[in-house]
């Protein structure tokens, strides 16, 4: 299974029947140094576009939106204590794992080549 990208600059990496979600290097560069991360509670059912995480950089606050409908299964408990990981290694600094309501929905997102073209 291939890693996918959303237009909101999130990456979705399949892991079994779950998707691991983080933000892209492009997003982390745009945000600047991340100093605060607020995660959703595991077990929460979310709708696409729902604001589920807060990221604050030295510059501003922004949200991470649920990429698709599903249930938040696990969150990265270490991240709020080490928010700088989002800048240091954005592809490893995951925020949450979601079990999509529709397992095929992930195929609607961009692959890496399409995302690279998207951000220009």
């Amino acid at each position, binding site marked *: 299974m291939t890693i996918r990208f959303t237009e909101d600059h999130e990456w979705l990496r399949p892991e079994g029947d779950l998707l691991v979600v983080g933000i892209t290097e492009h997003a982390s560069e745009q945000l*600047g*140094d991340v100093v*605060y991360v607020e995660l959703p509670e595991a077990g929460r059912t979310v709708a696409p576009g729902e604001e589920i995480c807060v990221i604050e950089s*030295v510059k501003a606050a922004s949200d991470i939106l649920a990429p698709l409908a599903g249930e938040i299964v696990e969150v990265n408990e270490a991240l*709020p204590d080490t928010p700088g990981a989002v800048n240091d290694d954005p592809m490893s600094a995951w925020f949450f794992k979601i079990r999509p309501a529709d397992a095929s929905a992930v195929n609607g997102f961009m692959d890496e080549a399409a995302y690279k073209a998207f951000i220009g």
Partner: protein
Amino acid sequence: MAGDTGLKRTALHDLHVKLGAKMVPFAGWSMPVSYPMGVLKEHLHTRAAAGLFDVGHMGQVMLPAGAVAALEALVPVDIAGLELNRQRYAMFTNDAGGILDDLMVSNRGDHLFLVVNAACAEADIAHLNAHVPGVTVVTGRGLLALQGPAAEAALQRLLPGVAAMRFMDVATFLWQGEDIWVSRSGYTGEDGFEISVPDAVIAAFAEALLAMEEVAPIGLGARDSLRLEAGLPLYGHDIDTTTSPVAAGLAWAIQKARRAGGARAGGFPGAERILRELAEGPASKRVGLRPEGRAPMREGVEIYAEAEGGSPIGTITSGGFGPSIEAPMAMAYLPATLAEGATVYGEIRGKRLPARITALPFHPTRYKR
């Protein structure tokens, strides 16, 4: 100089671009908000070594030496008592006792030298022209700030003699045949200098500093977090036409001579309110807030006395994350009856989060007095 975006550019614009700065519009100018190092590291570098800031967007103005009384009629500050080659913080007040702008004034013997905020420069110059004869807007010079514990050693290499200056001293030095006007002051809470340099040599001067190991270029982003940690107000945010110098915690800038019973008491716009607040205390005052946890409380966040219910008792005027204190910090105007150490609540995303009223600055200042 105007670029094709209509934004003015400082004489260092090309250098910023070469250094990879992210340029943003600020008060009508195209200014570097950060360099590839990033805001957080730029902030920490300034506290650990030396940061070089382009503050050429700020207004530089000269008044004739004879304008002391005319200037005193606009500011609640003792200008007549300002010693030769010394600088003082001041503010233009309005008739309601609010602040039109804050500025630096130095006594250069045959003239007074003023540095005003970029966003207010045009209005300040009109205000000065309406009340003070002989106003000269300085053109053809940029302004740099070199800030941090290594600033003295770095600048001393280019301008031998600066190390002997004390906080708020001003002096002129020669570099490559040009007059460099230096004050030992800044907006970061660190020791450092503000340096007025002719456009003709400012890029070379900046590059000579940047070539030194301890000096890095710093953008407006880190300038803001540095001044916030230092407890320094930002005009248009923490002080404005509605806030008096006393409520803003700037009574220290009003010397004895201009207070009740002083040699030249009053005689500035808004004296009635300002002298009354000096005597009786202001109804509200600018305080520091340390939010619990890591969530920053930013400008506009409303402050409540209780965790639930009630009406806001104040609003955050500046807030963010302090890289050196490794914690969020904010400033707000709150009722003067609230004591330091009291807990109040800032509402973020519908949740009321506790914050403690704390003394300013958040990070100790290190001026060389």
